[in-house]
């Protein structure tokens, strides 16, 4: 697909990264504005294609107070994911879900908060950078999170995403040194995803000390919203980390409930708990 075939998008054209001033994309603007109101941010993760009612789950978590939603596009070999999301991905794939189908379905999500997709880079690489970016934009997806695409390798995708108005959220890890953290924060769009612990996604009994440390380091390095994910499992942990971070991404705790059959109502209840937890703090 040629560059001229990409529909021009006004609102979030960060286009030229050389330009000093960049206009925030939709996700970033939305999160900044909510943060400015003194609100802590709750971003639930839902595996796309998990159950026939997965779009209802998305609507339920938004109704329960989610500030944005992360949709997992299932991949056969999810190396950053623990057993819960592995199982959800496998179930969705076995039910015939495809990344293309999920993205297309998001057009009819009809929610009033931004949507980010989380997937692995091979899905993007196989689809093609420009085609993937324009498809996400066309279907109303604001951002993409690719946990196996570190900042050093992100260039070609991130530029195509910028051009299409799709925000590429970069991840920072407890092992990331300071100089690298600056590069990551500079390249990140939407928010900075602070990985709370050394490990894959999954519920943990307690919040790791590394979560507070990486959140604080990210907050010092950037004015972008800083959300902590991986190992944030319940309202107590969410409140605890929000003393430092701007918000949380909660995946496995929610997906486990979905695997257990909690459905949209159960998902909404968890998000309402998380909402209440961080609002109390």
């Amino acid at each position, binding site marked *: 697909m040629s560059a001229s075939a990409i529909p021009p998008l006004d609102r979030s054209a960060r286009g030229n990264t050389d330009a000093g001033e960049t206009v925030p994309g939709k996700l970033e603007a939305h999160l900044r504005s909510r943060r400015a109101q003194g609100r802590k941010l709750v971003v639930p993760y839902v595996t796309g294609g998990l159950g026939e009612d997965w779009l209802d789950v998305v609507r339920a978590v938004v109704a329960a107070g989610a500030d944005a939603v992360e949709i997992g596009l299932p991949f056969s070999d999810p190396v950053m994911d623990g057993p819960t999301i592995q199982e959800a991905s496998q179930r969705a794939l076995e039910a015939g879900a495809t990344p293309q189908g999920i993205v297309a379905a998001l057009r009819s999500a009809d929610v009033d908060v931004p949507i980010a997709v989380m997937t692995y880079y091979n899905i993007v690489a*196989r689809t093609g950078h420009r085609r993937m970016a324009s498809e996400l934009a066309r279907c109303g997806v604001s951002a993409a999170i690719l946990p196996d695409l570190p900042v050093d390798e992100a260039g070609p995708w991130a530029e195509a995403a910028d051009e299409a108005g799709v925000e590429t959220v970069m991840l920072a890890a407890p092992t990331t040194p300071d100089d690298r953290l600056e590069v990551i924060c500079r390249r990140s769009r939407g928010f900075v995803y602070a990985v709370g612990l050394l490990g894959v996604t999954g519920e943990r009994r307690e919040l790791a000390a590394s979560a507070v440390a990486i959140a604080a380091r990210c907050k010092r390095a950037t004015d972008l919203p800083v959300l902590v994910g991986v190992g944030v499992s319940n309202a107590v942990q969410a409140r605890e980390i929000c003393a430092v971070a701007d918000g949380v991404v909660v995946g496995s705790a929610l997906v486990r409930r979905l695997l257990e059959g909690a459905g949209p109502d159960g998902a909404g209840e968890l998000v309402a708990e998380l909402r209440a937890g961080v609002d109390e703090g």
Partner: protein
Amino acid sequence: MSVHDEVPATSMGRPGGDGRFGEYGGRFVPESLVPACVELADAFESAWSDPAFRARLDGLLGSYAGRPTPVTECLRLSRRLGVRVLLKREDLAHTGSHKINNVLGQALLAERMGKRRLVAETGAGQHGVASATAAALLGLECVVYMGAVDVQRQALNVFRMELLGAEVRTVRSGSRTLKDAVNDALRDWVASVETTHYCLGSVMGPHPYPYMVRQFQRVVGEEAREQCRVLLGGDDPDVVVACVGGGSNAAGTFAGFVDTRAELVGVEAAGGAALGNGLPGVVHGMRSLFLQDEAGQILEAHSISAGLDYPGIGPEHAHLAAIGRARYHAVGDSEVLDAFRLLAETEGIIPALEAAHAVAWLVRAAGSGELTPGTTVLLTMSGRGDKDVQQVKEMLG
């Protein structure tokens, strides 16, 4: 990232500074692992150019692993096929395959980096056994991930690893073979990276693994080249052939011959032929060729050989194919079984099923006239077939 000298694309030197062999390679890992990969690349460069490290490694390769391994001229097989067949005998190395060359290097490197725990993936069990062996030798902890399917078909190797003091963890996700074992080893490493070295068994994964593992394996090709010159009156073989899963024995072999006139041939399993049927993609930290569907989901490989049951291939092989320096062919399970028996009956050598793929291609190419009579072929016998005897017995049953 350190600055590397640019080298001609064909010399199998260092990859580009971003870990690329042409358009393949790179370092596509979760952010948590990037600093460890950078540290490993620096540690390897420093060790590889340190005479004391090299002397210690060479010492172990000689006194412990049994190097140099011989090159055997196969008189009866040669008469049968009409081509002159030389075998590089990695099956005679300690633990029964070339895998020992790489793990001794990586275990010494782990020790040098202060990491006392190794994780490894294994398919056929050869790399797992080798890793467990090196860990026992140096007093390191060792955890080996192995797909449930492979645990079953290579039960004896599981016990072998346990005898050597390693913990074998059965992987039940995905296709339950080598690809999934790599996934779980990576997941372990993401959580344990500060104390653990991932002892990857092939020329795959994120930079520096494809380069580092090839360097640890190049002893195979370098020895073989010198041994061939003695046998061939100073000449090099016409054709050099090795089996390819991820491609470590082939990479090590090719490294010794890439600057000679020898034609380089890699042989894949028909059900796992990433070069034959794969598409460009990014999995397990590298850009390479993978069996995948149009959406980018990775497909399961199918082969009687657990060691070749992998839907990808090392990035340097993808590059060697792209520039035409090596060519790759695939052989099917039944040809492999025939070759397995043929080598046993004509030479008294029971090959690993992986290496039997290379023999199967040789038989086919000699029979079809693709190899003209009198052609000299060096074939790397990457491992011995003891581990496969039970499985072959059941299949021939």
